[in-house]
């Protein structure tokens, strides 16, 4: 546990030093998004990587967090921090209630149900024009502030977002190494065996779903307050898929993997922008190739490749741990 903590502290220190290296500008702005995406990926990873429950609708929880926060602050002038808390609580309660019937499903049925839920919520964002502003979006969301400190620049937002993201990562690492984390992994391997060992499988699955949704909602709220403008397009089916891809490409059940996946999938489109319309083709191709050649994700794939290079003897068919 001490080594885990040390690893985390080094990771956190490196990330918090970055703004002092690149004063401002485009890269810092992209890194703010890496932070938000990492938070979302870590939240989804708790559900998918640890408990083994798929969700293809997580963008909807992210969107709900953003819209609840945005509407409360922009339309009703509620304090931003209070709005963020309300968003997290409301989305958490929603996920808890819907979690019981939805998590009874397994495999592709669960995938389809979460996907359906995501699409229903996405359509609601588009159609409730009086409340959400419809397809043209909701603007005028205030920046978060702490006394005289207003988070209105990339640099300030960087620290704001990454403090939340690092806190989420620390929470998740602790959770994964706790009794609950072990129970979750037991559910992943065999629900029946977990139940036999005295794990309340049904409740635990719903609880982790709730936590995962609440984390997404907070990320959504942070997104709304840093962007100050939101529209339904950011919370559709494609984004749910992108989140799933971040978790899988990074490495299931690895918190740092989620960071790697989120960083890669956020930076990649920026790098590919030079290729203009070809970017989506390259993106699809990379997705296929990476899943084919690094099935365990980046976090397991890199060490395996390094080992192969250093030993100069490619070992075929050997699982990398």
């Amino acid at each position, binding site marked *: 546990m001490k080594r885990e903590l040390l690893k985390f502290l080094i990771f956190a220190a490196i990330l918090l030093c970055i703004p002092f290296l690149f004063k401002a500008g485009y890269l810092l702005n992209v890194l703010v998004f890496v932070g938000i995406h990492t938070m979302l990926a870590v939240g989804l990873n708790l559900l998918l990587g640890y408990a083994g429950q798929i969700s293809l609708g997580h963008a909807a929880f992210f969107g709900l967090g953003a819209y609840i926060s945005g509407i409360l602050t922009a339309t009703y002038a509620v304090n931003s921090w209070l709005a963020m808390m309300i968003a997290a609580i409301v989305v958490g309660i929603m996920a808890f209630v819907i979690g019981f019937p939805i998590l009874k*499903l397994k495999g592709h049925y669960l*995938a*389809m149900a979460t996907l359906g839920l995501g699409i*229903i919520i996405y359509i609601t964002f588009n159609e409730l024009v009086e409340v959400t502003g419809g397809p043209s979006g909701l603007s005028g969301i205030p920046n978060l502030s702490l006394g005289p400190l207003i988070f209105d620049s990339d640099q300030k937002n960087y620290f704001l977002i990454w403090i939340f993201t690092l806190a989420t990562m620390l929470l998740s690492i602790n959770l994964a190494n706790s009794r609950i984390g072990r129970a979750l992994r037991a559910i992943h391997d065999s629900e029946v065996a977990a139940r036999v060992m005295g794990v309340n499988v049904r409740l635990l699955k719903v609880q982790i779903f709730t936590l995962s949704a609440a984390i997404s909602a907070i990320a959504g709220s942070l997104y709304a307050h840093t962007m100050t403008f939101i529209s339904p397009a950011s919370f559709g089916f494609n984004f749910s898929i992108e989140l799933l891809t971040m978790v899988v490409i990074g490495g299931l059940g690895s918190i740092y993997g989620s960071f790697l996946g989120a960083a890669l999938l956020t930076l990649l489109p920026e790098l590919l922008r030079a290729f203009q319309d*070809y970017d989506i083709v390259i993106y699809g191709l990379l997705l*296929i190739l990476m899943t084919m050649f690094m099935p365990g994700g980046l976090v397991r794939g890199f060490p395996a490749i390094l080992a192969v290079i250093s030993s100069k003897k490619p070992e075929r068919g050997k699982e990398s741990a």
Partner: protein
Amino acid sequence: MQFSEQLIQYLLSGLSTGAIYALIGFGFAIIYNTTSIINFAQGEFVMLGGMLSVYFLSKLNFPLPLAILAAIPLATAGGAIFERLAIRPLKRATHLNLVIITIGGSILIRGLAMLIWGKDTHAMPTFSGDEPLNLAGATILPQHLWIFGITLLLIIGNKLFFNYSIAGKAMRACACNRKAASLVGIDVRRMVLYSFIISSAMGSMAGIIIAPLTMTSYDVGIMLGLKGFCAAIIGGMSSGFGTVIGGLLLGVLESLGAGLISSGYKDAIAFIILLLILFIRPQGLFKKVETERV
């Protein structure tokens, strides 16, 4: 128009889109049953069917039947190539990785379609004119009849293939138990290839017959694919009667909901139905409950 006439109208258009969903759902079920993969790229073959036909028609000036006959094999070849390059090389991939690969494939195919044909929506002429026919007080387009006819033929052909041909029986054996199938001499890998070929062929035909009614563009595959998946889930992932009923049910309820409640929520209605069915009968409408094998 009287209310009852209106109702018949909604019913008719619902049944015809429902038939399309059923055809797409068949594709999902056939691949799932031989490989236990959910092929998220299924919708893209539906798109390819429609877009290729439009391309042959308007750019190369093929006559309609020839354009269709050229489009189907090409879209099917796309399915076969996808299986060869992305699915077959993976022997020990997890389900989730396979899902990601099919998603990657769908992004890739959609991206290529966008590069080749642009982002515009294209219209396709109907197969035999736009003169509406009168049927029991409601009007029906000849294209609806084409849809019903072709869907019926494809379903019957599908049934005959799986029940009476050697390849069809072998594919069903793979669905039951892959290891046992390979022990009795069935080339499982070839059956997987066949399942992709049949699915993409059926998908592309679905895309072609619906295109004259709804227009087509590079991104129609997403929603059509998801609705087809819905139909297959409602039918319990079988490539039979269940999926047909699932598709028709989905199409009709969606069309009634859009007509009587709100057209903006049309797609939401389909997914609400899906969620309700999953909550009440998680194993699909027509399947018996299976106990989990530990």
